[in-house]
């Protein structure tokens, strides 16, 4: 078990190094930031001076090693635009993104799993079909278009909820969060709903498919043959089995929620890392783009790692190994 995790860790590290190389090389190819950063009227001497100050005059491999060396000590360069360390900038925007992503995930789980259960248990009923239709629609809708409609409806037409910014934040363990005040919560609601919709549809489908498979299993028949109540058969026998793949998917999808937050944050002007990324791309703020990608890759690796761990804790077959003579 321990060896397995050690190997996984080694693999993850290699991926991280490879990604840093690709990201760095790729991002290096984006335009020439000097054009944007230096006053167009500036003379050649001024440009050369700025280029040297940013380290852009040195050979590519040297820049990469400088970058790697810095990265190892947590220094991913300085933002060309803001003049602050890029990592610091990203991390300062991270709580907003994480809060949005978590809130969206909570909405998706709280609504998606129960609906998926109903649709899986009654696949041919009106309600089962309606839930499936809803999930097909939710699957088809591009996130940005849903955001648009939400703004159009709740912000412009009804005027119930604000459509941009984060609203009032409260400090929770030193981290600013929105959901503790009504103003913050009202700002959080629309973007979170927007971000949740796709995962909500996904969870409905996944849960439904799992339930449909589970109800055909002999252990469900056997549980019913024992005279257990419907509630216990569903709530314990079915749910405990299907929770293993569902929890795994929820974990893995969390990374994708953070990635899709790029779109949602841009629409709702949510001051998170995604909006920062788009702004940075538009302003050719290379170090911020690189830092964002490195943070995201690290986050993805961490998520995969944690999901693996949780999975092995949930499933007794993995947790206890496949020994058939156990029980000592």
């Amino acid at each position, binding site marked *: 078990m321990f060896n397995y995790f050690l190997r996984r860790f080694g693999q993850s590290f290699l991926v991280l190094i490879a990604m840093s190389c690709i990201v760095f090389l790729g991002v290096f190819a984006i335009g020439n930031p000097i054009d944007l950063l230096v006053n167009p009227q500036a003379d050649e001497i001024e440009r050369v001076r700025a280029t040297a100050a940013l380290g852009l005059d040195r050979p590519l491999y040297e820049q990469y090693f400088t970058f790697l060396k810095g990265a190892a000590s947590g220094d991913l360069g300085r933002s060309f635009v803001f003049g602050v360390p890029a990592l610091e900038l990203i991390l300062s925007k991270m709580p907003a993104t994480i809060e949005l992503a978590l809130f969206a995930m909570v909405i998706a789980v709280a609504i998606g799993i129960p609906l998926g259960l109903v649709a899986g248990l009654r696949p041919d009923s009106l309600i089962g079909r309606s839930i499936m239709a809803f999930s097909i629609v939710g699957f088809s809708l*591009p996130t*940005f*278009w849903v955001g648009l409609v939400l*703004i159009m409806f709740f912000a412009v037409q009804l005027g119930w909820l604000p*459509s941009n910014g984060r609203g009032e934040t409260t400090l929770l363990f030193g981290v600013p969060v929105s959901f503790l005040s009504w103003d913050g919560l009202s700002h959080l609601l629309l973007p979170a709903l927007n971000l949740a919709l796709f995962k909500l549809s996904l969870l409905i489908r996944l849960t439904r498919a799992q339930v449909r498979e589970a109800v055909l299993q002999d252990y469900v028949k056997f549980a019913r043959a024992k005279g257990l109540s419907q509630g216990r058969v569903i709530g314990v026998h079915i749910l405990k089995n299907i929770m293993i793949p569902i929890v795994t998917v929820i974990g893995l999808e969390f990374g994708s929620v953070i990635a899709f937050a790029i*779109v949602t944050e841009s629409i709702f002007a949510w001051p998170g890392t995604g909006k920062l990324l*788009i702004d940075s*791309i*538009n302003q050719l703020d290379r170090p911020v*783009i690189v830092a964002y990608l490195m943070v995201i890759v690290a986050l993805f690796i961490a998520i995969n790692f944690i999901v693996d761990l949780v999975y092995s804790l949930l499933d007794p077959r993995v947790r206890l190994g496949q020994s058939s003579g156990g029980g000592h």
Partner: protein
Amino acid sequence: MTGLQETSQASPHVQTPFDRFWREFAESRLALLGLAVLIIVMVIAIAAPLLAPQNPYDLAQLDVLDGKLAPGEQSMGGKTYLLGTDDQGRDMLSGIFYGLRISLSVGVMSTLFALGLGLVFGMLAAYFGGWVDTLIMRIVDIQLSFPSILIALILLAVFGQGVDKVIVALVAVQWAYYARTVRASALVERQKEYVEAATVLALSKPRIVFRHMLPNCLPPLIVVATVQVAHAISLEATLSFLGLGMPITEPSLGLLISNGFTYLMSGKYWISFYPGLALLITIMAINLVADQLRDVLNPRLKK
């Protein structure tokens, strides 16, 4: 078991595989509806210049004074626009027709390129196995563990805007799905007796791969490709909406929506809403068809 029965009762009217496929497909009315809508959308996209009330990109036909007219509102020149006009007085309906054309062609083209690429790599992995397989599949795995939007954004950030670059980005995010699908079904096919029989007959390797294995890998590939066209269209729209996709000279639906977003807050919803609706209808139609295709073509779900 049923196969034996069927051959023994060789019926007078010969049933082709397509007949059976079509009968099973037509079992879902929703899928038929999706197919009908999809055909209409495709006809509109192909014949946009013939069907559109105006050429939205011919500046001579535009009048800025007609800008931002609501659907059905009469312009100074006495014209009415069914879906209103945008800020430059462009007829939204025509804009949508032309936008569909661009969105669909980008989606279909990128899917075809990705399909070809994925097919080649998937087959290579399945056929050669060993380190070729390991290398290709490891790349596929790593790529698929990152959301497509993230990869596409980065590629576009690196390459800059342009139709060709959007297509490259869309191909890059899609090929891995095909490679994985092709490899999986090719491996299954490889175990089957007919491949063994073909090998015994000493048919050449390419012949075995292309004439024998490939046709049997097609059904799952068709399903994935259908889903992926919808995905590609949606992704292109998203990228264009974020301002990193199509250039303004190629106004896809996503770009139209992005253009109207500025006016959404002031209640001029139609500039964004109707292109979005067109996008939505297209994607939904494709997904409905894809869903039914999966049910019909997936032997695992067959009773």
